[in-house]
C-alpha cells in the first residue's frame, strides 16, 4: 500500500525487540548461569555473563541427577497426555457435533466446565480419587444402599480397589480430563462445510468411515496444534506429577528439577546445575515449538461459525 507506515513499522520493530528481549532475558540468564561454576554463584548469585562450565554442568546433571531418566517419564506423560487428549477430544467433539442426540448440549457443557477449574484447585480430592479410582463407585454403591443388598446376597459388600498413583496412567489420566481439546475440535468441525458431511453420507459412509476417511485427514492442522499445546502443558505440569508420583523413577523432569532446589536451609542451591538441568529439560519442548510453530497459528484459527 502506498502510505507512510514507517513510524508504525519502526514502533512495531521496537515493540517486537522489547518482546523478544522480555522472553529471552530470563532464558539468557538461565544459560549464563548454567555456564558458571558453583563457586562463582556462591560469591555472586546468578550470573549476568556466561562462563565456560556449561558442558561440565550438563554432564553433572547426567551423572548426579535422575533428570535424564525422568525426562523419559516426562516424555511418556506429555506424549500420553497429548495423544489421549487429541484422540478422546476428537471423539467426543465428533459425537457432539455430528450425531443427533438430545444430550449433546449437556455433554458439551459438562466437558467445557472443566476449563474453569484447574487441577491445582482440586488436587487434594483428585489425589483421593487417583488413590482408588473405584472410590466414587464404592461410595455410590454405599449411598444407594446397593451394597447392603449385595452384602446380603453375597456375604460381603463390593469394595473395589485400584490405585493409579505412581503409574504413568495415573500421571496422565487427570490431565486428560479437560475440555479445551473438545472445544477446539468442536469449533473446527463447525467451520467445515456442511455439504462435506452430506456428500460423505450420500457416498454411503457411515459414522466410522466418515470419521476415519474424511474428518480425521481434514483435522490434521488442528490435531497438530492441539497435540503441541497439550504436549507442552503436559511436559511443564508441576503440581500433579509432584503429588501423583511417589518414587523418583516415576517423577517427571520438571518435578525433578524443582527438587534440585534443596528444602533444607543448610545449602545454597547449585544454581548452575539447576539451570543446566532447566536447559536440558526444556530442549525437547523448545525443539517441538521450533518445528511445529506454524501449525500453532494455522490450527488455532477459530473462525467463528
Amino acid at each position, binding site marked *: 500500500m502506498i502510505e507512510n507506515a514507517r513510524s508504525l513499522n519502526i514502533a512495531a520493530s521496537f515493540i517486537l525487540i522489547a518482546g523478544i528481549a522480555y522472553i529471552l532475558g530470563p532464558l539468557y540468564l538461565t544459560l549464563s548461569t548454567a555456564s558458571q561454576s558453583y563457586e562463582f554463584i556462591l560469591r555472586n*548469585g546468578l550470573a549476568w555473563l556466561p562462563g565456560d562450565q556449561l558442558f561440565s554442568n550438563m554432564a553433572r546433571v547426567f551423572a548426579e541427577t535422575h533428570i535424564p531418566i525422568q525426562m523419559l517419564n516426562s516424555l511418556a506423560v506429555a506424549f500420553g497426555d497429548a495423544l489421549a487428549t487429541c484422540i478422546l477430544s476428537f471423539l467426543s467433539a465428533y459425537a457432539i457435533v455430528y450425531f443427533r442426540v438430545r444430550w449433546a448440549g449437556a455433554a458439551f457443557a459438562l466437558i467445557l466446565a472443566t476449563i474453569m477449574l484447574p487441577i491445582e484447585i482440586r488436587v487434594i480430592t483428585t489425589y483421593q480419587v487417583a488413590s482408588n479410582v473405584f472410590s466414587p463407585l464404592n461410595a455410590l454403591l454405599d449411598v444407594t444402599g446397593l451394597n447392603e443388598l449385595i452384602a446380603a446376597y453375597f456375604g460381603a459388600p463390593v469394595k473395589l480397589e485400584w490405585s493409579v498413583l505412581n503409574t504413568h496412567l495415573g500421571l496422565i489420566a487427570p490431565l486428560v480430563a479437560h475440555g479445551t481439546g473438545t472445544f477446539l475440535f468442536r469449533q473446527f468441525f463447525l467451520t467445515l462445510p456442511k455439504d462435506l458431511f452430506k456428500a460423505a453420507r450420500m457416498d454411503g459412509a457411515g459414522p466410522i468411515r466418515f470419521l476415519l476417511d474424511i474428518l480425521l485427514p481434514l483435522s490434521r492442522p488442528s490435531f497438530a496444534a492441539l497435540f503441541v499445546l497439550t504436549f507442552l502443558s503436559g511436559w511443564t505440569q508441576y503440581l500433579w506429577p509432584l*503429588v501423583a508420583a511417589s518414587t523418583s523413577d516415576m517423577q517427571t523432569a520438571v518435578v525433578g528439577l524443582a527438587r534440585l532446589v534443596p*528444602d*533444607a*536451609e*543448610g*545449602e*545454597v542451591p547449585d544454581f548452575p546445575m539447576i539451570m543446566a538441568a532447566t536447559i536440558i529439560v526444556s530442549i525437547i519442548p523448545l525443539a517441538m515449538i521450533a518445528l511445529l510453530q506454524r501449525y500453532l497459528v494455522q490450527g488455532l484459527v477459530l473462525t467463528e461459525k
Partner: protein
Amino acid sequence: ANIEFWYGNTGVVETAIQAQCSAFNAAQTEHHITCVGQGSYEVSMQKAIAAFRAKNHPVLIQFFDAGTLDLMLSDAVVPVQEVLPDVKWESYIAGARAYYETSGGKLFAQPYNASTLLFYTNKTELQKAGVTETPTTWEEIIEAARKLKASGHACPFVTDGDTWRVLEQFSARHGLPIASRHNGYDGLDAGYVFNTTFAAKHLQNLVDWRKEGLVRLASDTKAGNFTAAFNAGECAMMENSSGSYTASAKAFEGKYELTVGMAPMYKGYERHNTLVGGASIYIMKGHDKAEIEGAKAFLDFVRRPEQQMAFTSATGYVPVTSDVMDAIAKSGEANTPKYATAAVGIGSMNEPRTPDTRGIRLGFYVQFRQVFMEETQKAFAGGQTMQAALDNAKKRGDELLRRFEQTYKGVKLH
C-alpha cells in the same frame, strides 16, 4: 519382606539417606527397603495421609518435629517402643526423647535426622572488625554487630525469622512457654502465650536491630537466602540448624574460619535445653508381620553407631544416642569438623529442662508456623507492630487449636 520408607529431605541429606538404604539392603538378604523421597516433609505427609486412606501407605515414614501431635492422634501409627520393646531406648538422649515420648514415657517415633539450633560465626570477618571473642549472648552479638557495621560490614547478623529459630528454640532455651498446659503436653485445650513472654521482646528487638542495620533477614541479602549469605561471607553471624554445618564448612574452606556454638542467650536468663529438630521415623499401622520385621530391622540398622556417625559426618545432623557419643570419642576424630556439631548439639539439648521445654505438642502446628511467619513478616515490613503481629498470631493459632480439639473430640492424648 519388601518395605517402603518415605522421607522428605532433598540435596545432601537425601544422598545420605539413600546411601543408608543401600547399605541396609547390602547388609542383609532378608529384607529389601525402597526409600522414596517426596521432596519435602509436607508433601510426604500429605501423601501419607492420602495413601493411608487408600490403604497403600508405606511401613515407615519420616516426619518432622512440628507434626508430632498430628501423628500421635492420627491412629495411623504405632509407637515404636511398642513394636520394638527390646531396644535400649534409655540410650536416647533426654532432649530427643522428651519431644517424642508419650505421657507414659514411651517413645512414639525413633529420632532420625536430629538437629538443634546453633550459632555460627565467620571468625575471619569478626576479627577483621576487631571482635576477637566469639559472642555468646545477644548483648555481645549486638555489640559485635555494631563494630562490624562501623567497620563497613553490611550484614553483621542474619536470620530468616523462621518460627523454629526465633520462637521455638528461643523460648525453650530461655525456659519460656509457647503455649499453656506445658506447650500442650497436658491436654488439647492449651492456648498460645508467646505473645506475653520475653520472646515478644526479643522479636521486637530483632525489628529494631534490623532497622539499625545490625540484623538482616533472608530477603535483605543478595542471595535471598540467609544460609547462602552467611556461606558466601556476606553476613558474619547467623543462627541456624546443626544440619547446615556441612554446607557452611565446605563453603568456608580455605577462605574463612568458621565457629559454631550454642545459640545465644539474653543476659540474666538461665540457659535451658534447646529442642530437638529435624525429623523422626514412624511405623505405620496396617502392615503384616513380615513387613513390621523389615521395618524393625531397618530401624535397628540406622540406630547403629557407625550408621549414625556416617550420617552425622555427611550431613551435620546430630547423633541422638549416648553410645554414639562414646564411639565418636573413641574414633579420635571428635574435634574434627566432621563431628563439630555433635558435641555442641547434644550439649545444647542436654541443658536443664522444665515442663515447658520438653517440646511442642500442639495441634495443626505446621499451619501455625506459617501463620506466625506471615504475621511477623508483616511486622518486619513495617505493616504492623511486632506486638500486634504476635497477638494476631496467637489469635489465629488459638483458632487452629480449637479446631484441632474439635476434630479430635473424644480422642485420648497419649
